[in-house]
């Protein structure tokens, strides 16, 4: 008598449960880590921004919105540093993006050595910002720095121009911030370049071939193919650039201490001084959250305006 062939029952529920467990096991530590080291401190800091928070004191007095009001209406230096920060961001982001796109396109056009150039451009990115800042502070030294000495060799010794090549890069109020911008654009170029390079290599060459067949020149190729199809990369670069630019601190701290006369002082530097020099952690927290909301607004505007997706 033939028996019913039995086959093992697929343990569907166990398989699904096992998969869910794997997912949870991977996600929970990350979430927990984020909550403990980022989320909870942020919530605590936000709450304490409404207090006269001095960590050395036993009691912290509730102030309501006084810290926010002070930053926005009484602290003249806050407005100055906000302007400085916006100036820095407004210049370094578009310039940095344009330059790194240009370099990425150049590197992308190479037949050989792409990897080498990618590495060379990326080296400053992985170098400590403190080390880079110290090095550039020396490069910018008016009398003994390399930059001015090169200018002397070219302008005075070679071209015999009667100019003073001892440019006070970091001690002149008009030049100090641009000098820092040059340094940070140089340092960050490699990172953005690598992202653009990845974006460029993902654009199918068939689009360029088709466009050339239709008689498109270089500028048209750039405007109608390269830039639109790089949009996802640009969104990312712009967003991270804004976040990074608005939070800049290290170069100013190392190179100029926010000077001369606070022309290079940024919001983060200002709130750092309020917290760690005067122990006004509550006020510093309020400034940090004002900065947070400003960045949030910028990113929101950016995402809204760059919603259009290009596809061919």
């Amino acid at each position, binding site marked *: 008598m033939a028996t019913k062939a039995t086959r093992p029952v697929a343990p569907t529920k166990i398989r699904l449960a*096992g*998969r869910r467990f*794997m*997912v949870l*096991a*991977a996600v929970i*530590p*990350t979430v*927990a*880590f984020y909550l403990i080291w980022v989320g909870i401190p942020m919530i605590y800091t936000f709450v304490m921004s409404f207090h006269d928070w*001095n*960590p*050395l*004191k*036993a009691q912290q007095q509730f102030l309501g919105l006084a810290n926010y009001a002070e930053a926005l209406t009484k602290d003249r*230096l806050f407005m100055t540093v906000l302007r400085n920060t916006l100036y820095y961001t407004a210049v370094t982001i578009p310039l940095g993006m344009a330059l790194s796109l240009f370099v990425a396109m150049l590197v992308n056009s190479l037949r050989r050595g792409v990897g080498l150039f990618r590495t060379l451009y990326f080296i400053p990115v992985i170098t400590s910002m403190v080390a880079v800042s*110290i090095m550039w*502070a020396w490069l910018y*030294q*008016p*009398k*003994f720095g390399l930059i001015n000495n090169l200018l002397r060799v070219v302008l005075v010794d070679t071209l015999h121009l009667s100019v003073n090549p*001892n440019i*006070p890069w970091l*001690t*002149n*109020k008009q030049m100090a911030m641009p000098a820092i911008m040059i340094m940070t654009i140089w340092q960050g170029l490699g990172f953005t370049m690598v992202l653009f390079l990845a974006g460029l290599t993902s654009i199918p060459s068939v689009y360029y071939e088709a466009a050339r067949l239709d008689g498109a020149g270089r500028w048209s190729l750039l405007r109608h193919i390269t830039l639109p199809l790089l949009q996802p990369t640009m969104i990312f670069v712009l967003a991270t650039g804004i976040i990074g630019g608005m939070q800049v601190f290290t170069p100013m*701290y*190392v*190179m100029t*201490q*926010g*000077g*001369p*006369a*606070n022309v290079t002082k940024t919001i983060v530097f200002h709130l750092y*001084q309020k917290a*760690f*020099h*005067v*122990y*006004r952690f509550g006020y510093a927290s309020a400034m940090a959250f004002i900065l947070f909301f400003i960045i949030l607004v910028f990113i929101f505007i950016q995402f809204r305006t760059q919603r259009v997706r290009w596809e061919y």
Partner: protein
Amino acid sequence: MFKRGYAIVALVVLVSMLLGACGGAPATPAPAPTQPPAAEPTVAPEPTTAPEPTTAPEPTQPPATEAPAGEAVMVGGDATGVVYEYNPNLNNGEPIKLTLWDWHEPRIRVWEEKVKLYTQMYPNVSIELVTVPWEEYWTKLAAALPAGEGPDIYHFHNSNHTQFVGNGLIQPFPEEMFDPAFLRDNWVGMKEGHFMDENGKIMYLPYGSMAAMLYFNKKMWDEVGLTEADYPKTWEDMLVLGKKLTKYDAAGNVDRAGFIFNGYLELLWNDMNFEAGRYMYTKDGKGCQVDTPEGKANLEMITKFYDEKVSSPEFLTFMEAFGTQKAASTWSWTWFSGWLRATYPDLEFFTVKMPSMKGKDLPALGRQNYEVSLVVKPQEDKAKMAVAFDFLHWLYSNDETLVDLAIAHNVAPAYKKLFTHERIVADATIGELVKEIEFKVFPGEFPVSMNNALTQYIGQNIMAGTSVDEALKQTQEACDAAMQEADYWILERTYAHNDAMIPDQP
């Protein structure tokens, strides 16, 4: 296959999270001696402020012998007014462990030696020394102490007097070990209350007073045939002397500065204001005296050094310029001596009393600040506090230890008896400082925010070519704002020669 993949990925993520959570700073952070000069409490390792003198102190007294365990060593000192006596029943012979934090690596070397001797004398006591870099020191203390954590003993700096004393983070020194009457009569600044809280309780002790002097490159000095008779008495004399020491390039620009103060311009100006009889703060401590006739005259005097090409704002900061022999002379606080010896050991230099307005000591010869001592954390464990203070009493009652500390910090000792100690007299810088210290004003707290304001609006403004009037106006506003932000411990008017200063100042 995929399940195994998921499992492996999940395991890797889990393990890496666990390892990341468990990793942390080592119990004893590696020493990183980047600290501002003792008198200038800026938090950062900064190009424009002076770093840490890195000379290891060399106590020249023969190290107290490595006594067998339990035997008294370095006892009998009475510098605190109470003789230190060996106590064989310290903590009833029970084991006890203390931690001591400091940021200053050369000083840690001194503590290592002293702790070794002390713990040999009291084998039941162990003291763990922890070096915390200056940049993190106050943040870590601020996080640890209010939570009841942190060290049992920690080194203090008086720039944080208001915050730490005002918030009960320092235990007052017990009078049975540190006699207030004796200290008032025999230690600098005690009578004026420079180390006390508002109730007159002693919160820390001074090692000594630091102030500024002129530094000259000996070779350059000899080159132009100068002698002791050329020591400048006034700032005009200094201008003339500086011209003799300056060298120019073919284009007529300064190639070797005769006198350099880049990076310290604002503090030089500040000292000159005291010399002119003008205090730094208003009497109520809520404002500054910056935009004054004396302030203007002094800033104009300083810019003369640039205008007459004895110095240049394009030059290096005073430390690099003097150390690399691009400048013949400079003005600095005396921590500079130790830094030079450690960084440029071949450089021959000597120090000279700084000039004054009219070549006289009165009304004042500038500002001074104190290097101050270890302090004890208030805690419920009375046994730990008792042993901590016993250690401090043993340390600070000993004359030779106090001389060691004064020489290590290049300060004039605070214990007046040591002014004529042979090692103090033999040190040219400290020997000279001892003679001047009574004419140096101790203003009290020199808040970092105030220091920042002076750096930004005096120092950097002048180097950027801003006019004197504009610089003074901006500085006045910034300094007033800094002083109004918090309450500070202001002691200017306790200056011994207050009657020689400008009368009826605000």
